[in-house]
């Protein structure tokens, strides 16, 4: 063993044994984050702040799930918004037509999403790069057009009307603003924790290997197609959860939820926040929504402002905000070690 190899082995050993420790740390962080978010209504009466967090939950779940594809697997999907829309519509329709308890509708929606994602994924993940991007976009437009033309079932371009019934279950009444807020926070934290576990698991590292060199992964005996399909379905499930939170927030579902612009926003959020860190998309979500909410208060020319911001990130920082911060810390640490 050379000195260099010995040094690496030393570094790797604690990483492996520390995997369980890191999991505990993640759970602890999630618990603290949830406690902080859930106690927010005790300190502030601002409904707008609670609304903001609910929307952050919806978009945050969606954008982070997109990052499982873009950042971790190298699959740039332009059609991820279809699952956001699918979640909102399935959940809304089940609640309106069947009147089942909310948890049943929730699980049924996830099952529907998984089935649809498996079929679409099986076709798409064989393709690479631009072909994958465009075929996912095509499927998104297919779902969007179906929603528009199947007016008797989906309400067409006017969306699901009449409100989504929200009967109380287990003492939770989602028609109550604070209850809805806490439920959204819980879904966000649980969703992020689950995605974090996926990203840090051996499967997550397999995805990174596929991203970096798919041929090599294949030669090592990994079934690349199956791994890609699995992550495609998993990401769809979390996007669908985001859609359900949004459907509950607006008490309806609208074709815009399944339009390509939602996918575009997801990509934009990932560019803003950064794709190389797990929380990058979450930071991007908060940034985008903050920007959107403040800029639209003052001007209707928000497109120009958002355009300038994205130019700044793309040309100025050349990466997302959290990527930039992480890199800056790494450089400082390296400089410190070198001293």
């Amino acid at each position, binding site marked *: 063993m050379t000195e260099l190899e010995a040094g690496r082995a030393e570094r790797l050993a604690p990483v492996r044994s520390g995997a369980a420790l890191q999991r505990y740390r993640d759970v602890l962080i999630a618990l603290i984050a949830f406690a902080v978010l859930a106690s927010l209504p005790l300190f502030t009466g*601002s*409904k*707008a702040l609670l*609304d903001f967090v609910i*929307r952050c939950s919806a978009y945050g779940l969606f954008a982070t799930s997109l990052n499982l594809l873009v950042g971790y697997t190298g699959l740039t999907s332009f059609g991820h918004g279809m699952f956001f829309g699918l979640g909102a519509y399935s959940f809304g329709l089940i609640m309106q037509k069947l009147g089942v308890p909310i948890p049943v509708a929730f699980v049924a929606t996830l099952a529907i999403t998984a089935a649809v994602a498996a079929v679409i994924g099986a076709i798409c993940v064989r393709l690479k790069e631009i072909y994958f991007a465009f075929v996912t976009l095509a499927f998104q437009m297919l779902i969007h057009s179906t929603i*528009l*033309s199947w*007016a008797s079932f989906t*309400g*067409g*371009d*006017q*969306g699901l*009307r*009449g*409100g989504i019934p929200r009967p109380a279950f287990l003492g939770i009444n989602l028609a109550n603003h604070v209850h809805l807020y806490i439920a959204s926070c819980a879904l966000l934290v649980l969703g992020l924790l689950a995605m974090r576990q996926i990203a840090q698991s051996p499967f997550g590292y397999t995805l990174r290997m596929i991203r970096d060199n798919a041929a090599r992964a294949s030669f090592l005996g990994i079934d690349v197609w199956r791994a890609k399909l699995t992550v495609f379905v998993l990401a769809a499930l979390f996007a669908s959860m985001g859609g359900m939170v*949004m459907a509950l*927030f*607006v*008490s*309806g579902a*609208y*074709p*815009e*939820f399944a339009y390509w*612009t939602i996918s575009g926003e997801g990509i934009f959020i990932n560019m803003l926040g950064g794709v190389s860190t797990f929380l990058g998309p979450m930071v991007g979500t908060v940034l985008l929504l903050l920007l959107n*909410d403040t800029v*639209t*208060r003052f001007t*209707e*020319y*928000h*497109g120009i402002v958002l355009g300038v911001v994205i130019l700044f990130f793309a040309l100025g920082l050349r990466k997302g905000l959290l990527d930039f911060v992480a890199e800056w810390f790494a450089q400082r640490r390296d400089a410190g070690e070198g001293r």
Partner: protein
Amino acid sequence: MTKTRTPGISRRSTLALMGAGAMSVAAPWVARAQAKTIKIGMPTILSGRVAQLGTSSRNAVMLEVEKVNAAGGLAGRQIEMVIRDSKGQPQEAARVARELVNTDGCELLLDGEASSGSFAVHEVARDLGVLCIHTCSEASSLTADPKQHIPNAFRCVRQGIHDSIVGGSYAASIAKAKGLKKWATCSPDYAYGRDTTGEFTLYLKRFAPDVEVISESWPKLFQPDYTEVVTKILQAKPQALYSCLWGGDLTSYIDQANIYAMFSQMEVFAVNMADYTALTVVKNLPKGIHSGNRYIKTFPTTPENAAWGDAYRAKYNEYPTNWSWQNATAVMFLAEAAKKANSADGKKLAEVLKGLTIKCPFGADGTVTMRGDDHTLVGYAIGWGTTIPQEPYVPEVKAGDWKTIFELEAEWKKSKGYT
């Protein structure tokens, strides 16, 4: 080089700091002094493809609010409008509406959203219980469907079903007079296009039973090229064509169909033609296109209506749109209701608004009514006429008969299972 500035806090910044301090101490007092004003929130579409309509809604509201404020305000309270862009996205419309009420302290809402956005704002009104007047959504189900009904929401907008009844009976009378039996339709492929065309042909056939639709075309919404649609219609050789294309779609369609001289080969009925946004944009407006009135200052033919159109034009240097008169009417309703209730409280206003009839330049007989049982606008000027290529564009409009509208509307509601 001499240095004129000394380090530390300059006199200017000290003054600025003191000023800011004084402001922050005084702010609550200033706010209290203004508490007499009433804030009205309005989400509408100010960017994107239909921004022109949203802007014209804002213009009309501000024109009327100025008048109300000059006359003493809403039950003695000056109106302050808070108008925000929703980009035409329902989730944004819902967010903006909630923010207007929860954060900005708006006590009333004017909903300047079209189609899906209006249903999203409707849910916000249901949730927050705030008085909401829809001012732009023509979807009949918004008020006709009892599932949508809430005591605090009203609709001050023309309605698809009313247009179809009047259009159908007008077209039938022309069809009988000129012997137009073979018809074609060409409408945008989404719920509004499909529903409106379906209802129009239903009433056309009811009044003129021997009419036959021999060709249907459904171009995509915002389609740039209509060549295949135009040639398909020309090949079918119909005697008349119905279309509910609107805005930019209608104007590009007419410009492209002009190349094939389509308008000399058949009678054209385009319900959304008589709106200044379409009339003034078409390059060569053909003579004799039949159209429903959207907003036109020659109909109703009253000095009040003409004066209103001119005042709007003088202020904003453009003609009002269909959305303009609807938004203006909503403010007129609020002003009159506040006078009657002697209050600007949402609940009291809602009580008075039910069944309220007001004087209005856009009324068929000089008045319009907020019908009590389904909270929707009736009695507005509605009619059809034919175009000429220059002002006044639609010189004569044949008014629709509200008695027939009411009868057929009741029948339609029954057929839909609404009553």
